């Protein structure tokens, strides 16, 4: 009954949003918290009159909230325009401030904002090592140890992978980086508020955060920079953000960001985990299907990613869209890039498997009825597309 109601809702253009890995709905509390900083307290936080002081106070209060959430000091939080800027800043800033060393280590499964920054740093004379991962997307700690040289500046890794949800072991990596005296940067855009981050316990030097994956506004993020880290400013101008990031602070968005952090709680994680596991076990019942990434605690609570034999991911997304479900793919034809996902290739998938991938990502707003509807809808779509596929017949023989 519930699923039938959802089906009706879907027809009435109520989208079932399972693309929370791309971005999330702004929580109503967040929107509400931001409005006064557009309409009333719109002062520039660098000015000395009352409106400026009020804006500055809101800015610093937000900084405290975000700092506390990762066990950092407020002065160690620098606000940015989002995850991409934070990653660019962390890598370029430390690279150029420590340029006598010239070596950086990252992995093959990073977000494009890390990979393309690394590629650019290579063009600037830096040497970059890209670590392999195993079939579930985990790095090999011994390989990390072996790749650290005298001249290594930092190791950068995505905390929870945006495509396959793999959560790296920060404690162990942090110990290695501390022992070898290299900086440790994590891209925590997907994991923030969903997986514990403690900069002291995990020996973190740099952490990229953003708001729009946690029901905050787009266009705002932060970079945690541990005290005494040698990093150069990457955006020059005024003395904002301790001279590290010039530009008038986006106070309303920053207030919304802090609000989004404040309203998260562990019950959301529990609910998402339960729905995720239900979705995974039901989708895997479709013949010729595999789950990409690990199962259980080491997978991000909001992430699922599947490959379907003999069909292509974008076509699945197209039919899901028709059924009122918003999903995404890391497949060949998905975006402005015809190559299959570098993450799926890194975990050893064939071109065919990588092309046939579908990512369904949950949020605290995802309901059980929505997951039931997706579970009902998906097998029909896969069946239909396999009927179109020249490989459908071959598949029948192997199933």
């Amino acid at each position, binding site marked *: 009954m519930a699923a039938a109601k959802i089906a009706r809702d879907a027809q009435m253009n109520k989208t079932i949003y399972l693309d929370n890995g791309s971005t999330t709905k702004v929580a109503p509390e967040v929107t509400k918290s931001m409005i006064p900083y557009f309409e009333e307290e719109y002062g520039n936080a660098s000015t000395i009159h009352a409106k400026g002081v009020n804006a500055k106070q809101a800015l610093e209060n937000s900084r405290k909230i975000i700092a506390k959430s990762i066990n950092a000091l407020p002065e160690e939080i620098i606000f940015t325009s989002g995850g991409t800027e934070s990653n660019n800043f962390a890598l370029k800033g430390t690279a150029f401030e420590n340029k006598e060393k010239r070596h950086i280590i990252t992995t093959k499964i990073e977000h494009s904002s890390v990979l393309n920054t690394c590629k650019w740093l290579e063009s600037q004379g830096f040497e970059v090592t890209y670590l392999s991962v195993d079939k579930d997307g985990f790095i090999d700690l011994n390989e990390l140890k072996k790749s650290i040289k005298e001249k290594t500046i930092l190791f950068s890794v995505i905390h929870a992978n945006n495509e396959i949800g793999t959560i790296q072991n920060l404690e162990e990596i942090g110990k290695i980086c501390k022992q070898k005296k290299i900086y440790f940067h994590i891209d925590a855009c997907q994991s923030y508020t969903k997986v514990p981050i403690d900069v002291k316990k995990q020996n973190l030097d740099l952490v990229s955060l953003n708001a729009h994956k946690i029901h905050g506004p787009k266009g705002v993020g932060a970079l945690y920079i541990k005290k005494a880290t040698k990093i150069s400013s990457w955006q020059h101008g005024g003395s904002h953000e301790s001279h590290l990031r010039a530009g008038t602070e986006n106070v309303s968005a920053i207030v919304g960001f802090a609000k989004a952090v404040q309203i998260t709680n562990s019950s959301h994680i529990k609910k998402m985990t339960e729905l995720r596991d239900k979705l995974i076990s039901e989708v895997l019942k479709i013949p010729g299907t595999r789950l990409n990434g690990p199962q259980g605690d080491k997978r991000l609570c909001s992430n699922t990613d599947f490959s379907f034999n003999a069909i292509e991911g974008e076509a699945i997304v197209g039919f899901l869209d028709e059924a009122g479900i918003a999903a995404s793919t890391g497949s060949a*034809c998905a975006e402005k890039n015809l190559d299959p996902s570098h993450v799926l290739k890194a975990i050893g998938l064939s*071109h065919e498997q990588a092309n046939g991938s579908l990512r369904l990502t949950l949020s605290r707003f995802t309901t059980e009825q929505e997951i039931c509807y997706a579970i009902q809808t998906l097998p029909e779509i896969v069946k239909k597309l396999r009927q179109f596929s020249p490989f*459908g*017949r071959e598949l029948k023989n192997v199933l």
Partner: protein
Amino acid sequence: MYSKETIERFRNPKNTGEIPNADAVGEVGNMKCGDVMKIYLKVEKNKIKDIKFQTYGCMAAIASSDMLCELAKGKTLDEALNIKFSDITKGLGELPQIKIHCSVLGTHALKKAIENYKSNN
């Protein structure tokens, strides 16, 4: 990203499937490029009496295959050989630049099927 015509054709293709006793088949593409198209022909008096496709690929590839079948049906083999990728994209309203190759692949699949037919008859 896609035109209404492309989405509509992708969602409701009219020419999918196999022709069991086809007079010729043409298959192009590979997994590496992400698209594989298979075109089945039934030929009568040098005309394409029936044509069907099976395609592994994205929305543009499926829509292009279906458009191609519609354009080719009823044409003589020589007329069908003259179908250009731009005829397919025109029929689909338009295709994003990065997806034009899907329409090109369609013309290649048809050409291959017709060549196979000619070499066997």
